[in-house]
C-alpha cells in the first residue's frame, strides 16, 4: 500500500480516557446509532464499536475502551483497555490511532494518563473534552503550548453539542492507516509489559511532572463549585443522604411498576392478537401449536417485561450520568461492607431488580475478584421483574385486599417479598464473608464525579443498547428454550382416551410427576411441579404453564384472571404461601445460570448458585408450608 492509499484507507481508532471524562458521550456523538455491542473474544467485557465517515468519505472504525486511570490495571475493564491498546488480544487488531479523551475540567488525572500513554509510542491525539464547561468555569489552558510541550496534537471537543467533534474528525483525517495489521501477541512479552506497567517510582515521577506542566500552560487547580459542595452536604449526609436515597429508590420502583402498566398491557394485547390471528390462519396441527403455544406465547411472556426494564434502566442511566450513583455507593459502603461487599456492588444489584442478567454483567466494574463473585452470586436474590407476575397472581388469589392500618395488605405482602430477597442476599453475603474465602481489605477508591445534567442523546443510545441486548436474548436463548419446552410439553401426545390435560402425558408431565415426589413435602401439587419445568426458561412462564395444566385455553391477558379463582379454590393457603416463598429464591432461571457461566468462565459458580438457591427455596417453602399448615388447621 502506498502512502496516498494509506491516507484514505479505513482508520481504526480507539478512545481511551479516565473514567467519567465524557468518553462515552463523545463516542455516541461521533458514531450516533451506528454502533454494535459485542464481547471481546474469550472475555465478557462489552466491546463497543461504531463507525463514521468524514467529509472526504473516509471511514473510521471507533472502539470505545473502558475508562482507566492507568496502564497498571485494577479491574477486568482496565486490563482490557491496556491489552487492546497494546494489540495483545488475539483477533482484535491494534488501533491505528489512540484518541486520548482528556477531561478539561479535571486535567491532572487526564494528563497523567496522557503521559502514561505516550510511553507506548503509538500514534496519538488528545481530545480536550468538556472544553466548554472548563472555559465557563475559568480554567483555561494554552492548548498550543501544551501540545508543543507534549509533542502530541490536541483538539478541543464538546461531546454533548452538535458539531462539537468537527475539529477531532478533521485532525483524524491526517493520520495514515498502518500498512500492515499488527499480529496480536497472545502472551505477555517482557518488553511490552515493562513499557505498559510503569513501576511506583515512575508513577511518582510523572505525578510530580503533572502540576509543573499544567502550571506552565496556565491551568490552575479547579476549585470546588459551591453548588456542588452544597449538594454534597445534603446528598452525602449520613442521615439526610440516606433519606434522599430511600426516597429516590422508592420513586424509581413506583415508576417502574406504574408507568410500565400501559405499555405492558399493549404488548400483551398485541401478542394475544397475533396468537389469535395465527390460530385462525392455520389448521389445527403441530405447527400451529408450536407457533402459538410455543413461540408466540412463550416469547410474548418474556417480551412483556421490556417496558419495566427500559424504565428502570432509564433511571439507572440518568442517575449514573448525573454523578449520583457513585454517591449512593459511598453512602451504602459501610452497610454493604459489614456483610463483606463493596459499595460498588450497589449499581449491579440495583440493575438486578429489573433482571439479574444485566446486573451480573455490570459486576465487571468491581475490581476485587472476590467482591465481584459475591455480587454475582447474590444478584438473583434481588426480586427481578419476571417474578412480579407470579407474585401478582398468587397474592391476588390468596391474600385478601384488606386494609392493614394505612396500608393495603396485598401491597404489604409484596413489599415483604422484596424485603425477604434483599435480607437473604445480605445473609448469603455475610455467610460467604465468614465461611468462604477471606480477604480482610476491600478497596473502594471510587471517584465521585462532578454533578451534571444527563445528556439526553447518551441516555437514548444507552436505552437502545439495553433494548437491543434484551431483544437479542429473547430471540436467541429464550426462543430456543421455548421450542424445546414446547416439545417436551407436547410429546408424546396423549392417548385417544385421555381424560386429563395433554401436558400430563408428555415428557414434561412425566418429569413433573417425578418432581412431585420431591416437592410434596413443601405442599406443591403435581400441577405446580409440572409448571416449574417450563419455568426454567424464564420464571414467569410458569404462569402460562399452570394455565396449560389446568386446561385453560385463554390468551395471556385473560389467563391471569381466569386462573386466579381456580387456584384460589383448588389450593390450600399453605400451598399458595409456600409457592410465594419459593419464588423469593426461585432457583430455576436457565438464562441467568448461562450468563454466570459465561461471566465466570467456569461451571463451578453456576452450579453452586443453582444449588444454594434451590436449598434456600426448599427450606423457606418447607418452613412456610409447615407453619401455615399448623396455623390454618
Amino acid at each position, binding site marked *: 500500500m502506498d502512502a496516498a492509499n494509506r491516507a484514505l484507507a479505513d482508520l481504526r481508532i480507539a478512545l481511551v480516557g479516565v473514567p467519567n471524562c465524557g468518553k462515552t458521550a463523545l463516542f455516541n456523538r461521533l458514531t450516533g446509532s451506528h454502533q454494535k455491542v459485542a464481547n471481546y473474544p474469550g472475555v465478557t467485557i462489552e466491546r463497543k464499536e461504531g463507525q463514521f465517515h468524514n467529509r472526504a468519505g473516509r471511514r473510521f472504525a471507533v472502539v470505545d475502551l473502558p475508562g482507566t486511570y*492507568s496502564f497498571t490495571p485494577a479491574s477486568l475493564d482496565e486490563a482490557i483497555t491496556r491489552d487492546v491498546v497494546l494489540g495483545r488480544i488475539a483477533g482484535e487488531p491494534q488501533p491505528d490511532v489512540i484518541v486520548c479523551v482528556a477531561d478539561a475540567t479535571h*486535567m491532572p488525572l487526564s494528563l497523567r494518563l496522557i503521559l502514561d500513554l505516550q510511553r507506548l509510542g503509538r500514534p496519538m491525539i488528545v481530545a480536550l473534552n468538556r472544553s466548554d464547561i472548563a472555559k465557563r468555569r475559568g480554567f483555561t489552558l494554552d492548548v498550543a503550548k501544551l501540545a508543543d510541550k507534549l509533542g502530541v496534537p490536541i483538539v478541543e471537543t464538546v461531546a454533548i453539542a452538535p458539531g462539537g467533534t468537527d475539529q477531532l474528525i478533521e485532525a483524524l483525517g491526517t493520520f495514515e492507516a498502518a500498512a500492515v495489521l499488527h499480529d496480536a501477541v497472545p502472551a505477555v512479552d517482557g518488553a511490552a509489559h515493562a513499557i505498559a506497567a510503569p513501576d*511506583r517510582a515512575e508513577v511518582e515521577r510523572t505525578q510530580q511532572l503533572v502540576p509543573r506542566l499544567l502550571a506552565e500552560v496556565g491551568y490552575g487547580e479547579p476549585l470546588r463549585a459551591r453548588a456542588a459542595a452544597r449538594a454534597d452536604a445534603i446528598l452525602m449526609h449520613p442521615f439526610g443522604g440516606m433519606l434522599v436515597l430511600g426516597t429516590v429508590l422508592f420513586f424509581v420502583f413506583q415508576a417502574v411498576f406504574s408507568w410500565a402498566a400501559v405499555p405492558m398491557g399493549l404488548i400483551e394485547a398485541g401478542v394475544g392478537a397475533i396468537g389469535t390471528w395465527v390460530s385462525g390462519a392455520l389448521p389445527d396441527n403441530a405447527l400451529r401449536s408450536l407457533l402459538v403455544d410455543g413461540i408466540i406465547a412463550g416469547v410474548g411472556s418474556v417480551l412483556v417485561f421490556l417496558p419495566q426494564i427500559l424504565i428502570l434502566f432509564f433511571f439507572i442511566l440518568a442517575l449514573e450520568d448525573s454523578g449520583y450513583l457513585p454517591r449512593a455507593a459511598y453512602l451504602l459502603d459501610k452497610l454493604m461492607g459489614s456483610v463483606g461487599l463493596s459499595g460498588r456492588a450497589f449499581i449491579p444489584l440495583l440493575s438486578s431488580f429489573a433482571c439479574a442478567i444485566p446486573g451480573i454483567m455490570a459486576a465487571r466494574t468491581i475490581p476485587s475478584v472476590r467482591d465481584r463473585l459475591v455480587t454475582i452470586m447474590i444478584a438473583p436474590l434481588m426480586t427481578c421483574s419476571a417474578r412480579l407476575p407470579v407474585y401478582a397472581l398468587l397474592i391476588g388469589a390468596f391474600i385478601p385486599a384488606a386494609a392493614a392500618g394505612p396500608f393495603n395488605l396485598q401491597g404489604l405482602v409484596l413489599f415483604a417479598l422484596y424485603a425477604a430477597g434483599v435480607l437473604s442476599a445480605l445473609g448469603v453475603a455475610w455467610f460467604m464473608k465468614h465461611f468462604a474465602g477471606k480477604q480482610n481489605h476491600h478497596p473502594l477508591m471510587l471517584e465521585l464525579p462532578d454533578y451534571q445534567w444527563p445528556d439526553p442523546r447518551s441516555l437514548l443510545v444507552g436505552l437502545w443498547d439495553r433494548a437491543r441486548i434484551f431483544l437479542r436474548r429473547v430471540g436467541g436463548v429464550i426462543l430456543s428454550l421455548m421450542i424445546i419446552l414446547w416439545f417436551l410439553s407436547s410429546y408424546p401426545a396423549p392417548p385417544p382416551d385421555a381424560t386429563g390435560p395433554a401436558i400430563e402425558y408428555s415428557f414434561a408431565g412425566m418429569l413433573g410427576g417425578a418432581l412431585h415426589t420431591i416437592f410434596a413435602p413443601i405442599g406443591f401439587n403435581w400441577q405446580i411441579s409440572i409448571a416449574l419445568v417450563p419455568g426454567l426458561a424464564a420464571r414467569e412462564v410458569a404462569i402460562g404453564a399452570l394455565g396449560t395444566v389446568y386446561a385453560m385455553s385463554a390468551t395471556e391477558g385473560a389467563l391471569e384472571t381466569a386462573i386466579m379463582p381456580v387456584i384460589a379454590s383448588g389450593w390450600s393457603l399453605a400451598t399458595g404461601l409456600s409457592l410465594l416463598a419459593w419464588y423469593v429464591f426461585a432457583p430455576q432461571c436457565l438464562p441467568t445460570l448461562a450468563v454466570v457461566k459465561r461471566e465466570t468462565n467456569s461451571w463451578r459458580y453456576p452450579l453452586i448458585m443453582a444449588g444454594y438457591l434451590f436449598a434456600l427455596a426448599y427450606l423457606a417453602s418447607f418452613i412456610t408450608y409447615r407453619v401455615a399448615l399448623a396455623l390454618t388447621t
Partner: protein
Amino acid sequence: MSTLMRGARATVHRVLDDTLSVGDALHSTVGQRLVELGFVQGAEVEVVESMWPFGDPLAVRVRGSTFALRRGEAAAVMVVPANGAG
C-alpha cells in the same frame, strides 16, 4: 489521612507501600493506585465529607477530583495537617 475530620485540609507527606492488591494478584496495588489518583508528596488534600459512624468511608478531594476511600486506604496516605494540629 484516615484520622482527619470532615473539612480538614492537609498536605501529603508520602504514601505507604500498601502492597495489598486492588483486585487479584495480577492487579495494581492500593499504594500505586493512590499515587495514580494524585496522592503524591506535596499534594493538598481536603476531606469534604465523611460517613457516620467513624468517618468511614470518607470523600477526599485531591488535585480537583474527589474520591471515596475506605479508612484502610486512607490510612496509607501520610499527611501533615494544614494548621499544624492533630
